[in-house]
């Protein structure tokens, strides 16, 4: 087994102020190449903080985060930006498309800060849009697209530069049921092609499409029993901090949709 694409070791993230809030209280998580992991949890449980840390958008208070086996805590802003641009793709709940630019230009933005040669940019962007089923809408304004289509544009933008890790923060939060399903189908396809995906969601059905399902509660990760049965990438210490909560683990067990996992895992 190759090294983890992303690995958190005892990660702590605190926010200062009058009283210190501990958003992440010692999280251990490893994502192997090809992993498809859903992180669920109540509002304020630290889901977004966890994803921001994994996306190098936020810094750690303690612990270490490795991307492709390389520790990131010592990197400066420029180096972190370079890792973000080359290795990590982001999908946001609110899409973050620029309304003044065409669908194609929005996707091309992914190449602005990377080192992809100019001649390769447009073919790769068009290919990514073809893949998400929007190859015929290149010149459209995002404003004319439905929510599901906008999110697919955002996904094309996230993957066209060839990231190793795709991070999605409530990607279906603004979508209706059928659009959610088509977006999740897209994630499953990308994962089937080998892309490592971590997705934050509060939707059990969406979480069910992932291979692994982790519950974030009070700043710590809790995995399901099914997770424990496939322990390859889950450090045992992740379950350590909150041993008392057996209830949730069994709930997560019930919700686990193992059929999809078996069908798409390589």
């Amino acid at each position, binding site marked *: 087994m190759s090294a983890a694409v992303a690995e958190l070791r005892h990660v702590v993230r605190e926010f200062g102020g009058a009283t210190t809030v501990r958003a992440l209280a010692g999280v251990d998580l490893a994502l192997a190449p090809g992993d498809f992991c859903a992180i669920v949890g109540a509002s304020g449980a630290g889901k977004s903080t966890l994803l921001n840390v994994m996306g190098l958008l936020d810094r750690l208070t303690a612990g270490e985060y490795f991307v492709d086996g*390389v520790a990131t805590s010592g990197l400066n802003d420029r180096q972190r930006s370079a890792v973000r641009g*080359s290795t990590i793709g*982001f999908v946001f*709940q609110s899409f973050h498309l620029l309304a003044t630019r065409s669908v194609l*230009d929005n996707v091309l*933005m992914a190449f602005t800060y*990377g080192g992809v*040669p100019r001649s390769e940019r447009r073919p790769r962007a068009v290919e990514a849009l073809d893949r998400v089923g929007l190859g015929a809408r290149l010149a459209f304004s995002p404003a004319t697209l439905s929510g599901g289509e906008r999110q697919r544009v955002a996904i094309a933008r996230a993957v066209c530069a060839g990231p190793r890790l795709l991070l999605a923060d409530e990607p279906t939060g603004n979508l209706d049921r059928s659009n959610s399903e088509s977006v999740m189908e897209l994630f499953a396809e990308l994962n089937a092609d080998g892309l490592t995906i971590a997705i934050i969601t509060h939707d059990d059905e969406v979480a069910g499409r992932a291979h692994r399902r982790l519950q974030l509660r009070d700043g710590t990760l809790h995995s399901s029993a099914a997770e424990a049965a496939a322990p390859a990438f889950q450090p045992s210490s992740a379950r350590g901090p909150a041993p008392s909560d057996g209830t949730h683990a069994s709930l997560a067990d019930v919700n686990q949709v193992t059929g999809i996992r078996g069908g798409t895992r390589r």
Partner: protein
Amino acid sequence: MSRRDRTVSRSTRHHTRPPHGQGLGARSVITEALDGVGARPGRLVVTVLGTVTGIAALVLTIGLGQTAGGQLASHFDAISSTHAEATAAVAAGADGAEHPTAEIPRDALARLDGLAGVEAAAVLGEVDIGTDPITAVPIHDPSMPETLAPPVVAAEGDLLGAVSGRLARGRFFDAGHSARGDRVAVLGRDAAASLGVGDVASRPSIFLGGHAYAVIGILDAVDIQPNLLGSVIVPLAAARRDYPGATAARVELKIAVGSASVVAHQVPIALAPNSPDDFDVAAPAEPTQFEGAVRSDIDLVFVAIGIITLLAGGLGIASVTMLGVSQRRGEIGLRRALGATRGQIAAQFVLESVVVGLLGGVIGAALGVFVVVTISLVQGWTPVLDLGMTLGGAAAGGVVGLLAGGYPAIRAALIEPVEALRAASG
């Protein structure tokens, strides 16, 4: 760069990047900035207006100044090509002040007569009358307020011809008056007004140190030596009789067009064959210094208006860029997520405001040039515009944009990506 940093870049390059193309993406950032500027055309127009007005005012002021200066110079050229003035060279004396090294010879006019290129000649000099009053009535009335006496100029020869003067009334004194030493006077327009002399038909007299001088003419206008209009002009012979110190200080010449260099060479030789270096021949002093001084004050006002407008334009760019930074937090967050460094975010906003400033500068400079040309056309002037000044005006707009964009750009760069993304989605 530490060993670990190299490891990161090597591994990222290995997985996702072709071996070349690790550039900073300067070209991309410029493209992004241009797109950013063009994205909101309505706002762009409003933002650019201040810079356009400021630069236009500056270019207009400087351009009009140059154009008017050009007209003045050509007018002055016409005068200086037909007039000349010979004076004794000066040298520093024992007292430190400068003194003429020679006197105008008494037969100067005879010496200059018939010289090639000389059409009219006159010698003249200011007469020091001490504290003598000049009045139009013979009685000295102690209750009268003391008034400043107009200067007295003694002259001989064709002064009217030499300064291209025109008389309002009467006549000028001639060689006969000079030969006889008649006490006659011609008053400059302003001197006549201050002495209360309106008409010369009745031969009014003015009293100069107790001597009655008959006023025979009033001078209305001159091309050169405008101070004559405020003076009392008397024949040199009469002045010498009443004020023995009176002497000619210079020779005024009306010369044929194209003869300036010949005249400048020959006149000193004619005046002093043994030491021609004692005399200098030059174009008369510029007659419009006073007007020039007034105009430079007006220029200053316009330049001040231009600079203030430009400052307002810069503040406009700064505040609109600031607004843009807060409205585009989501975009900033997205760009950071896509791999933009703080420096690239700052560069984008600075470039955007520089482009806006440059646009304003170019439009403003063009507008200024257009107005200068239009005014020149209406006035029948030749527009005089310095290319460097015009291009500089356009560039100044860019500098304004650079200064105005700096602070908002730093603010944009300092926004944490997490904050930026949260603010936009919330």
